């Protein structure tokens, strides 16, 4: 019973982090806007990449919450760990951001994506370990 409650809390937190990455990166901690001529800066493509990974993580998180098979749930949660790390590596490491560190993509998007990506990775690993104990 106690383990189920912990798994439920971890599952909800995982879903929260995934939603923050998928929805948040578009609405809250988005990249810089388009240039005056309408073209996008490189950070826009980093935002798109995070959106795709965040979307996949959201689907997996929902499965973690609703799949009944324990082993499958742990496996799905564990899959979120590399995805979370991958999302955290996208801004500036995999895809270069804008030129100045005080621009929105550096000041807001990068730290937020790193925090939510790493948190999701840690929670996913913890979920797999907590489930394994039983």
């Amino acid at each position, binding site marked *: 019973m106690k383990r189920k409650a912990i798994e439920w809390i971890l599952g909800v937190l995982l879903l929260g982090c995934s939603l923050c990455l998928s929805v948040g990166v578009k609405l809250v901690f988005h990249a810089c806007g388009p240039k005056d001529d309408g073209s996008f800066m490189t950070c826009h493509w980093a935002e798109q990449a995070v959106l795709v990974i965040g979307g996949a993580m959201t689907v997996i998180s929902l499965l973690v919450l609703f799949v009944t098979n324990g082993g499958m749930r742990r496996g799905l949660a564990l899959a979120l760990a590399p995805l979370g790390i991958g999302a955290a590596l996208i801004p500036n490491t995999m895809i270069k951001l804008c030129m100045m560190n005080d621009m929105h993509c*550096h000041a807001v998007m990068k730290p937020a994506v790193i925090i939510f990506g790493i948190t999701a990775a840690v929670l996913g690993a913890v979920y797999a370990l907590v489930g394994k104990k039983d």
Partner: protein
Amino acid sequence: MKSLAIKNLKGRPVRTAVLMVLAALLSFTALGGTLVVASLGKGLDSLKARLGADVMVVPKEATMKKKFEDIVLQGSTGYFYMSYALADEVIQREGVGQVSPQFFLASTGSSCCSIPVQIIGFDPATDFTVSPWIKRTYGGELGKYDIVAGSDLNAFVGDKLSFYGVECTVAAKLEKTGTSYDTTVFTNKDTITALIQSSLDKGMNDFKDTDPEKAVSCLMINAADGTSPEELVNDINIHCKKVRAFRSGDMISGIAGSLGGVSQMIRLLIAAVWVLGIVILLLAFTMSVNERKKEFAVLRVMGASRAKLAGLVLKEALCTCLGGSLIGAVVGLLVLLPFNGVIEKTLALPFLLPNAGSITGFAVSAVALSVISGAAAAAVSAWRVSRIDTGLILRGDN
């Protein structure tokens, strides 16, 4: 007794969580507030250290520009020019010691971005303000088309950056200053002249009547021996009509004033949150003890001494406060360290985070302060518990 305290906390998860949130709020406020105030102070110190010259002279029309002080002091984007003739008029004044011109140019956006970058040109032969600072990270001479990038520019040594179609090489990267200088590019006179010429060729700049080959933006002056900066500023302002001279220290006083105001506000906010937090903790512990009087009376009957009961209350308080304070400090660090760029931009003041050692010190102090405050608030309840009349409580007369 230790395990009993933990069991009590686990048995009342909501109460424990509320107390932990309060302790977290206290440590978050203390750490966040202290870190912001310390960063503002460090930013101002950094700005003072970069001033370098006693007096700055700019063309009179420059003073009409919005944020003109930020352009001259902090490297914000913007430009203005005066002719060599005007500059010479100033240089000839009595009391002028070291003089070095600077040239400002704002890019229309470099190869990757739409945001303009401020480019500051200096004359290596006469410069005494920028060179000492650059020498801390780059010992060599800047060649033509070599640039030194501010610490917040996403460009590294060897990278090529294009301004007005001219490709420049990053020769060095500066240390962080916490000012707009962090997003500025420095280069020598030859390179900036080439950039200005290229901007004119592309029709992206207008110098009106000024010949760009014979123009400067700002003169950095040190007063000669025997002349005070005030005397020099007054002399230049009286005798050279088309320029304005400022004492560097006077220009910084406005920033220092804003910074003092913000710091004072933050300190007041910290004090208010702390007073409120401690009062709430005091009430929470008192209510909790009142509600558990019978539990403590039973423990007394079972042989627990008065000191042990007081110790139990204190241990519970210490555990919740320590857990909450640690969470508050971690959240504080997770908000302030990665998002310091947003704070800097929002405050629009020099903002430079202290070094790792100082940050650790602030975090440990915030946790300690929060735990001590929680323990002090719980001490009153612990004292009351040690004084309970067991018989009276178990008879249900209380």
